[in-house]
C-alpha cells in the first residue's frame, strides 16, 4: 500500500529524476526525446488493463476496452515512431565516421 507521504516522496523523487535525466539535451534530439517520453507514458496501458480486468457492468467494460485500446496505441505507436527516428540518427553518424 502506498499512502500519503510515501506517495509524495515517490512523486518528488521521480520528478527530480525526470528533470535531471533530460538535463542538457542538444536541440537536435528534442523531437526524438519527446517521442521517447511519449512512449514511456504508454505504461498507462498497464493501468487500463487492470481497470478492464476488474470491470463488471457493460459501461465499465466499454470504457475499459477503449482505455486498453488507446493505451496499446500509445505504447506501440510511441515505440515504432521513436525507433524509426533514432535509427536514422545512427545511420547518419556511421556515414560520417
Amino acid at each position: 500500500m502506498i499512502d500519503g507521504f510515501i506517495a509524495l516522496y515517490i512523486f518528488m523523487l521521480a520528478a527530480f529524476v525526470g528533470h535531471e535525466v533530460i538535463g542538457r539535451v542538444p536541440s537536435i534530439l528534442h523531437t526524438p526525446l519527446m517521442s521517447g517520453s511519449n512512449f514511456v507514458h504508454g505504461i498507462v496501458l498497464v493501468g487500463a488493463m487492470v481497470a478492464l480486468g476488474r470491470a463488471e457492468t457493460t459501461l465499465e467494460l466499454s470504457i475499459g476496452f477503449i482505455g486498453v485500446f488507446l493505451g496499446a496505441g500509445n505504447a506501440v505507436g510511441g515505440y515504432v515512431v521513436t525507433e524509426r527516428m533514432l535509427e536514422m540518427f545512427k545511420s547518419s553518424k556511421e556515414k560520417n565516421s
Partner: protein
Amino acid sequence: MSEFVSMNTLIETSYFIAAILFIFGLKRMSSPVTARGGIVWAGAGMVVATVVTFLFPGMTNYVLMMIAIGLGGILAWVSGKRVAMTDMPQMIALYNGMGGGAAAAIAAVELFGGVEHGLTFSVLAVLGGMIGAISFSGSMIAFAKLQGLINKSMRFKGQQVVNLLLLLATVLTAGYLVVEQGANDYVILFFVLALVLGITMTLPIGGADMPVVISLYNALTGLAVAFEGFVLQNEAMIIAGTVVGAAGTLLTQLMAKAMNRSLANVLFSGFGVESGEAMEVSGSMKPIEAPDVAVMMAFAEKILIVPGYGMAVAQAQHKVWELTQLLRDRGVDVKFAIHPVAGRMPGHMNVLLAEAGVPYDIIYDQEEINSEFATADVALVIGANDVVNPIARSDPSSPIYGMPILNADYARNVIVIKRGQGAGFSGIENALFFLDQTRMLYGDGQAMASELISEIKAL
C-alpha cells in the same frame, strides 16, 4: 496464500525493473551516441510490465483485453511504420492523445465503479481524468491541425473568458464528484466539459506553436498517468508518469526558449492576433528563372542552403542533396543552415536531412552558421519562411519580433524557392522576399531542384 504473496512479489519486482529500464532508457535517449539503445531499453521495460500485468490477481475479461491490445497495437504499428518523416510531429500528438485518453478512461472506470474511495484517491482520480481528457482532445486537435484537417486558427472575441469559464465549470464539477461519489450523470458532464476545454484551448493556437503545445500535452499525459497510478496503486505508472511529466515540462520550456516564446505567450496570446498594425512591407518580389540561378550557383564560392518544412513537404530533400553534391564536386562550398525550429519542431529538420543521406558535417546550427551569411555568395532558401524573416529583428510590433532568425538577408544574393506568393506558416509577410538582392524562383521545391541540377550539368 503463499502463492498469492509470491505472485505479488513477482509483479512488484517486474514493475521495479520496468521503472529502472524506463529511466535508464530515457537517459540514454538524451545523447545521440546511445539514443538508439535507449528506446530498446525502455521498450523492454514496457514488455516486462505489460506481460506481468496479465498475472494480476482478481482479473477477468482477458479476451476483451487481448482484442483491445491487438487492435490498438496493430493500428498504431501500421500507422507508425507508414507515416512519412515529415508527418512525425502529428503522429506523436496522436499517440500522446491516446495515452491521455487511456488515463481518462481509467479515471472513468474508477468513478463509475461507485467504490467508496478516500479523499486523496478521489481527488487524484478526478484530477488525472481531467488532465487526461484535456490532453486527449487537445492532442487530437493538434493532430488535425498539423495534418491539415483543420486549416484555420479559430479565434473570437472573449475566447479567453469562455475558456476560463469552461475551466471553472470543469473544476467545479470535479469538486462535486469528489464530495458526492457515484453521481454518474455528473461524471459524464465532467468528462464532456474537460474534452471541450481541451478543444477550445487548442483551436486558437497557431500551427507554428503546435510543437510546444504537443510537448506540453505530452507532459500533461505523463502527469495524468502518474495520478491514475496512485489511484490504482501501481508504482510503474507513478514513476514512469512522473518522470515523463517532469522531463516533458523541461522539454517544453527548452522548445519554447528555442522559439523565443514563453509558454504563457504560446497558450494565451493567440499568435498574430495583435499584429494588425504591423509594418507594411514595401517593394516588390522579383522573379527569376532556373537557368539564371544555375549559373549563379555554379560559379559561386560559398552557398548556404536554408531548408524549411516546405522542402520536406515537397519531398525535395533528396534532390537538394543531389544538387549539393553536384556543386561540391565543382568546388563550391555548400553548407546547410538549420534554424532550431526548422521543420515542425526542434531537431525535426536534422531527422529529415539525415533521411536523405546528408552527412552531419555540412549541417550547421544557427549559432555556428549565422556569422557566415555575410561572406556567402548565395543563400538558397527552400521552403523556409518565418525563420529568415528580418522583421523579427526590426519590427517590435510583429508577433515574431525577437525570435532568433537565420541572417539570410546578409548574403550577397538570396534565392527563394517557393510555390507561390502567399505568406508563411504564421501568416506574416516576409520582408526578405522584397529585398533588392532577393530573387524568387517560383515552383515546386522538388521540380525546381531537378531543374537546377540539369541546368548545372549542362553548363
